[in-house]
């Protein structure tokens, strides 16, 4: 980008994150305007109510967690398509541990996280150990983890009736805000520290820019890659617990398709799919833009009456992502045109 050098405020203003923030505020204000009304039953419903904001937060926590897990992976120019399948598998593991084995939560929760870590370790072993391409490896584990979850339950068993203390994690509030938001914030801060304030974070980016170069520069590439994929497994397991607590049920089809929403959020957030470039803040904004768009659209009367809120939000999310990509390319395209002239 060609801005007058040395002008710090300009650099901040023109960043991708700033642009996303503007989009977020604009869409929020528009939904506030058109989504606030007295409904047919005389009940005032508002997009701007605190309850609605909490609703959006609740619904975006699992995708948000997966997107956070994916950010360092994509920064290494990798990908993990298996996160949502692992979420489903962990939900079933948790259901079986609490219901069939009869373990107390104090044991079932750490064991579920361990299962997530193990799932991540399978990816890590194949990607970091054998140096297989992440896209192919996680495409395999994407089917493997989901298949395992289905096999463990015959695809039919649904675990319900969890203790109310556990359900509070997904449906209750801690200190006034949805309980799972604390986990989300915790993971977000942790990821931000990792990516932007640690040596490991610098290595992660270096790997994304030039894996060969990183190796020669003394970065322990294998170790770094293992770390990010195992971490993604752990975060997926945490997302599984939040998901199960929110819906009060664990079933093999939990969170089907969430990996695509999560990748969308990361890329929309400005992280380059080719690695090296991106930020945790961008991912968080990407998650927020998608979550607000989904919820705002789904609750507009005109959309509900079209009987196809799901399809429309998919359409617009996809459209938004493509626009973001094209706009990201614009400066390059423009300068290319200028040079040719």
């Amino acid at each position, binding site marked *: 980008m060609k801005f007058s050098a040395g002008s710090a405020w300009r650099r901040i203003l023109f960043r991708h994150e700033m642009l996303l923030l503007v989009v977020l505020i*604009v*869409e929020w204000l528009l939904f506030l305007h058109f989504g606030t009304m007295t409904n047919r*039953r005389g009940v005032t419903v508002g997009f701007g109510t605190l309850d609605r904001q909490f609703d959006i937060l609740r619904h975006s926590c699992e995708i948000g967690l997966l997107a956070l897990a994916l950010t360092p992976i994509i920064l290494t120019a990798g990908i993990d398509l298996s996160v949502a399948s692992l979420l489903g598998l962990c939900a079933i593991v948790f259901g079986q541990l609490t219901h069939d084995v009869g373990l107390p939560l104090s044991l079932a929760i750490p064991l579920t996280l361990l299962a997530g870590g193990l799932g991540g370790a399978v990816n890590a072993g194949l990607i970091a150990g054998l140096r297989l391409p992440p896209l192919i490896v996680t495409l395999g584990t994407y089917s493997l983890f989901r298949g395992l979850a289905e096999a463990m339950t015959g695809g039919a068993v649904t675990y319900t009736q969890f203790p109310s203390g556990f359900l509070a994690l997904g449906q209750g509030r801690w200190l006034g805000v949805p309980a799972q938001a604390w986990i989300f914030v915790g993971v977000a801060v942790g990821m931000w520290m990792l990516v932007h304030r640690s040596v490991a974070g610098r290595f992660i980016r270096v790997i994304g820019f030039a894996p060969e170069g990183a190796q020669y520069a003394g970065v322990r590439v294998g170790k770094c890659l293992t770390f990010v994929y195992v971490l993604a497994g752990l975060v997926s397991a945490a997302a599984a617990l939040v998901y199960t607590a929110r819906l009060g049920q664990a079933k093999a089809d939990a969170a089907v398709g969430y990996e695509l929403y999560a990748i969308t959020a990361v890329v929309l957030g400005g992280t380059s799919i080719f690695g090296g470039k991106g930020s945790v803040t961008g991912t968080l904004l990407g998650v927020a833009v998608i979550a607000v768009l989904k919820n705002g659209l789904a*609750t507009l009367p005109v*959309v509900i009456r079209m009987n196809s809120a*799901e399809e429309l939000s998919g359409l617009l999310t996809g459209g938004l992502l493509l626009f973001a990509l094209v706009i990201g390319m614009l400066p390059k395209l423009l300068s290319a045109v200028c040079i040719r002239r």
Partner: protein
Amino acid sequence: MTFRFRTGFFLSILVPVFLAASASTVLAQGKAMIALMPKSKGNAYFISCKAGADKAAKELGVELLFDGPVDANAARQNEIVENWITLGVDAIAVAAENKEGISTVLRKAQKQGIKVLTYDADSLPDARSFFVNQATPEGIANALMDEAARLCNSTGQFAILSASLTAGNQREWQMYIEKRLAEKYPQMTLVAVRPCDDLKDRAQSEATALMSANPELKLLMAICSPAVPGAAEAVKQAGRVGSVKVIGLGLPNENRRYVKEGVTQTVVLWKTEDLGYLTVYAANALVNGTLKPGATSFKAGSLGEFAVDKDQILLGTPFLFNKTNIDDYNF
């Protein structure tokens, strides 16, 4: 410059959406709005329910919403109900994918004064006023047993193919079938009940085994839907078409070929269009107060009177699909 250009781009996506949305702040009053949810939107069974529901909505002059998950997804059902609560519809009727899963949000709807009912698959009883029940276990069992007796002239051997020997609904149907058999058809004998794990292939091999073990067998009765075409295929391959009759509980489309070839005599189910029609009439009656808890009967347009048993509205006796009428139905 670049900045303004970019933001403009984003705005240009959002603005048309909101222009469309702005029309919505003026909400239709007066005309009742009834929301109907299938287990999944693309399922032919529910599409034919919708055809009946549309007809009822037109007759009653109510606005009908019909939305559900693209695949049978319990979590997505909850989200759609939430949205209907936001819109403030007058009545919600749901075919529940997950009994417990849907109940919390249905209770929330009731709290806001929205009338709630279920059809096809029930929620927990306290989460709705009425369940429009397409068929009672006894009704299904009697229809199957009576049809079997009719085809066998009330004498001879028959066998049952079930999904599993432990599944609740299968055991219940079997129990009522045996009760009906003992009460009305003393000349008939049930020689075996074999499970097929809800698999067509397994049903086929079980049916083949049953026929060779019982040469006198006159009829195969399949009480889970994959077993009906499975049994028919076995009879066809054994060259016993006609001498061993096949009946069962299933969808017309899965069995059309065998019914037309004369392998399967009768498929027992209910008219799904009537189920949708009745559900919308019941929802409308709840909204305008003509149907209240405690009612014993209820009139639904051109279909006439329906019995109400406590909190269940009964669609009535199952319907028999056979060679002469199966082409009138597509689900």
